[in-house]
């Protein structure tokens, strides 16, 4: 187990290194720069700025300086908002996005598994139909549309919920739901098909033959087996929610990391682009490792080697 985790962490670090290298050289290869002659009329000021960001040095030296910075936990400084470090943006934006993403994730898990289980086990046809209708809607409506519609109807016209910023618990409801809708639908579908499959298995018959009531057969014997595909999906999905959504954050004016990421690309703020990419890469890799560990904990047949 410890050996497996060490191995996965080492591979993760290697992946991050490759990601860093690729991002760095791609950024270098991109034509144009925020320090172009049109923006800096004063040649002296331009050179000073270039020197500040090590841009006067050879590319390889810049690369090693950048790597050195990363090992010290320093992702550099923004080109545009001078004086603001990349770390500052992450420290400011990530907690906001992470809180919203976690809430969305919890909603998605509870609602998704609930809807999927209901659809799979209900003997009434209409319950199954309603559940699957929700699941289809959730997959097919894009998040920007649902975010805008919620904002318009529930926020503006009905005035039920606040819809700008995150200043209290009720502010989270609409953006979290907008983020959660797609995962709810996916998890509901996965849960339903997987649970239907599991309920047909022989070990369910054996569990019933022991006199275990139906409800306990589902809870104790079926759900744990049925959750495996859901876990495989939910892990990376959580990472995705933590990295924020530009659309939802922009619509609800949330100062999160998702909006920052898109803005820095538009601004060609290379240190910020690279820093964000590496940070998001780090989150995704971490969650992939966690997903595998949780899967192995649920299903003892999965061997971690």
């Amino acid at each position, binding site marked *: 187990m410890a050996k497996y985790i060490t191995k996965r962490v080492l591979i993760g670090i290697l992946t991050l290194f490759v990601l860093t290298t690729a991002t760095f050289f791609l950024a270098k290869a991109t034509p144009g720069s925020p320090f172009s002659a049109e923006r800096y009329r004063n040649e002296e000021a331009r050179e000073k700025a270039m020197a500040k960001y090590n841009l006067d040095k050879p590319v390889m030296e810049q690369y090693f300086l950048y790597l050195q910075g990363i090992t010290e936990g320093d992702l550099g400084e923004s080109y545009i908002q001078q004086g603001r470090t990349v770390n500052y943006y992450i420290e400011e934006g990530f907690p906001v996005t992470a809180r919203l993403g976690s809430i969305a994730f919890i909603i998605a898990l509870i609602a998704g598994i609930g809807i999927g289980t209901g659809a799979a086990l209900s003997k009434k046809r209409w319950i199954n139909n309603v559940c699957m209708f929700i699941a289809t809607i959730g997959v097919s409506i894009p998040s920007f549309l649902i975010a805008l519609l919620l904002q318009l109807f529930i926020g503006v016209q009905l005035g039920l919920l606040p819809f700008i910023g995150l200043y209290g618990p009720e502010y989270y409801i609409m953006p979290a739901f907008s983020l959660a809708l797609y995962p709810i639908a996916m998890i509901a579908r996965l849960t339903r098909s997987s649970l239907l499959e599991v309920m047909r*298995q*022989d*070990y369910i*018959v*054996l*569990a*019933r*033959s*022991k*006199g*275990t*009531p*139906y409800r306990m057969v589902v809870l*104790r*014997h079926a759900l*744990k*087996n049925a959750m495996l595909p859901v876990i495989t999906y939910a892990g990376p999905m959580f990472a995705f929610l933590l990295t924020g959504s530009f659309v939802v954050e922009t619509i609800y004016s949330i100062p999160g990391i998702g909006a920052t990421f898109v803005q820095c690309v538009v601004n060609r703020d290379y240190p910020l682009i690279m820093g964000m990419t590496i940070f998001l890469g780090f989150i995704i890799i971490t969650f992939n490792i966690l997903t595998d560990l949780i899967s192995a904990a*649920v*299903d*003892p*047949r999965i061997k971690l080697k």
Partner: protein
Amino acid sequence: MSMLEIKNLSTEFSTENGTVQAVRDVSLHVEKGEVLGVVGESGSGKSQTMFSVMGLLAGNGKVVEGEIHIDGKDISPLSFKKAKEYDAVMSDIRGNDMAMIFQDPMTFLNPVLRIEKQLIEPILNHNDISKAEAKERAIELMRKVGIPSPEKRIRQYPFQFSGGMRQRIIIAIALACNPKVIIADEPTTALDVTIQAQVLDLIGNLKDELDSGIIMITHDLGVVASICDRIAIMYGGKIVEIGTADEIFYEPKHPYTKGLLDCISNPEDLDKKELRPIPGSPPDLLNIGKGCPFTDRCEKAMKICKLEMPDTKVFSDTHSCACWLTHPMAKKEGN
């Protein structure tokens, strides 16, 4: 009183192609300390009879007629007005008064739960005791079915056990509450021959130890011969012949029973006796005629066989058979 009594049981399955009459008018009983073998080929309805008794039929299956009594208690699905009432009663009975040993040890244990959890479950379901006590009893059961170092192995998962050991676990689960009736559904079919013998020995020993009635479903007459007191032969959803082991082996009346006996290989007279398979294939239970289901494959079939189901003729207290050949009007042959 019989431990288990089944009277005129019929079970149907509704499928896309129509109604399958899997079990047709089956009557059986098992006494205390007795082993009843139920023999028949795949699709003869032997397993579905037992699933009907246990109330474990698949969703599209339904008992349409008949009575089931366990130790005098009525558990016929048709006696209950609501499915919920039946389920509640059966939750008490299953695993407690009546338990089942299943066919395939590889698929009948839950892969993600420890043996401990699966083995203490029936004990906790039917006894008011603590988890620790249940675990002690579970370890005792594992020892009884011959699993070495049970204290250690109870913490393991099914995939860490061999097929034979898993079948022992399944047997231990069935024995957990000293059931009055144990139904063994082809308990050795999925095992190697050497393991088969071990598991049969185990069941044979249990028979002497316990006071339960055991029903042994199989398609292997060799298995039946070694441990069964009485044997019921099923074909096309019906019981065609039933008798003590001696009566079935030495005085078979039904052509199908005779056919089955001809299929047993005996290493001693291999060169003398030819193995004779029964020609043809089992009847289609989707649209089965009125007559004897074996007619199409029967060498001695008469006109009447296809038209009407023969009455059951009684030869002794224990031996009876449903075949037109046993009718006084049938032409006697020197068989």
